[in-house]
């Protein structure tokens, strides 16, 4: 919410990283007493609160069913912030339309991957859809794109007026759970939903776009105007890895 100044952001992220490493990562500095660890833990809470205040909630999509512009939190300055912490992301409660079903994403890395003391799973390098969800008659998805630091992020939001009952959503982009706030303000968190990688992601978007199951928005278009069809679609034939990588400290990890 508060305007982000780059230097202030960098300092805050560095402080969060340091505190996090002292608390959770082994092999960083001298062992700490319980009292010191408690103190660091409190400091980390305060730093996380400060971070929450600067994480932008940007217009990232538009629901084709309700017409609502969809604002979603996203740390667009880098993937070093705790928004990207896979196991314990620092994200505000989202204001999403009641038609929101799920969010998947991808990142085309440009330059070095940021070092983080936690695991990050930004998704593959090009956008994809989950066929067993999108083929449902009631579901429609919207693909959009924005810069994230030096990288390019792709978001695929799925919407349904009546959610399909016999198919489950995947985990939300870059975190290990699916989370939503229902219309009564109740927060629902489901950690057991599958990773998108386990749901046979389809990278060939042409047919989905042609059938208007997948709509799209021009990269960084402010008004979030929905577009349909293949003409002038910038998301066709994108190159990039289809792996779902896991990074820690900027290094790609092998996950068993």
């Amino acid at each position, binding site marked *: 919410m508060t305007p982000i100044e780059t230097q202030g952001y960098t300092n805050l992220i560095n402080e969060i990283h340091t505190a996090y490493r002292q608390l959770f990562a082994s092999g960083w500095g001298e062992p700490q007493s319980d009292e010191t660890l408690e103190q660091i833990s409190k400091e980390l809470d305060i730093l996380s609160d400060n971070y929450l205040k600067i994480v932008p909630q940007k217009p990232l999509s538009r629901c084709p069913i309700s017409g*609502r512009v969809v604002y979603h939190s996203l740390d667009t300055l880098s993937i070093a912030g705790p928004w990207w912490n896979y196991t314990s992301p620092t994200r505000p409660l989202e204001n999403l339309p009641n038609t929101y079903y799920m969010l998947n994403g991808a990142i085309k890395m440009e330059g070095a991957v940021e070092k983080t003391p936690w695991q990050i799973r930004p998704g593959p390098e090009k956008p994809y859809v989950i066929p067993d969800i999108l083929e449902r008659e009631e579901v429609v998805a919207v693909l959009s794109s924005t810069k994230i630091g030096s990288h390019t992020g792709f978001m695929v939001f799925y919407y349904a007026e009546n959610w399909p009952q016999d198919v489950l959503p995947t985990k939300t982009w870059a975190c290990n759970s699916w989370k939503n706030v229902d219309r009564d303000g109740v927060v629902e968190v489901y950690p057991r939903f599958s990773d998108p990688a386990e749901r046979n992601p389809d990278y060939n978007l042409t047919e989905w776009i042609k059938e208007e199951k997948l709509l799209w928005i021009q990269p960084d278009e402010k*008004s979030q105007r929905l577009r349909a069809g293949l003409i002038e679609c910038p998301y066709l034939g994108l190159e990039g890895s289809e792996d779902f990588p896991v990074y820690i400290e900027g290094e790609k990890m092998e996950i068993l």
Partner: protein
Amino acid sequence: MESTSVPRVNIPKYALDHLMDTQGLLRNELSRVFMIPETETQDWKKYALDWWNNQTPENEHTLREILQIMAAPSHLAYMTVCISDTMIQEANAAFSSPLLTEPAVIVGEAPEGDNYEVKHMVEGNVFANTIMMYLDAHSDIATTDLAVEMSHLDLAVLLATVDLYKRKHMLSLMEHLEVDDILTYDDIDKSLQNSLISNDPRWVTSFVLDYLGINEVESASVYDSAQNLFTQGWMRMSEDQKAFSFTDHGILLAESIRNKVNTVGLRTLASTMEGKVGSNKLVFIRGSQLLWFIEIQPQKAVLTSINLDQAVEIVTSVLTPDTIPDSAPVSADPVCKKCGTPATFVEEYQRWYCYECKEYIQ
């Protein structure tokens, strides 16, 4: 409105512009009706930021949704309710989506300070249900097959005659006399002219005139309209053509409205992707046993007796416009709440004026 038991929050007027900018909210043409003051100065920016930072995370969540809706409503609905013969209430609703299962807000002025008082509805259906509650009024509704198309002025004269009928009944009660149901041109004209200058909730004409956009009427036109009502079968005319009395149809309308329960007026504004603003105007008069619906079109009005199911359909339909508004940046000039026309700032009086409705906007 009293019936909408929804959470309400006060938002400082001078913080709103900055909060919307800081959050990167998209704004559309319709947001101009809220007349959000521009706050370029650093003092206000600091004030807005401090105010926001004092909110709890739960409040922030609700406030963010409110700001998003106020910045770019999909459509707006202004409801005026005249409860029985006693009081008039207003509610201005802004919707996040033409889908009524999505949230909406009611925006008003807080009684104290420079604050918006905003009520947050988890879905737009709450607003639609509130309208239906006034129309239902917990009693049965009969139906007739009456549906009449007429000019705005003919409708105004018809309602002025109905008010006159009611006035005569009230007077006869006071005087312990039989009702004199002979209505003269002069009396009808006087009833209409009074309605133009008074906003007395007992009379239905002044309420509807506001929606018809009639500000003045020449007596000669009243004469012509009374003749039209005779031709349309609402009234009988005396042999010397100087006095009228209601026909059976007229009595049905006049008796029903004489004991009116609630009157509900609704104006909606929606804009297209190109930013063109369109509006709907309609009035429901919940009579003692009948529910009257007036659809106000640009050149004419249609008066119909409807049942509650039809009312639900009408209300749902006007609150779910087909168009999805654009979210392009717009100028900060306000638009008229009644007709959607951009208002003009009058330097001399330091107020915004609508040349279409010929009045200052609030």
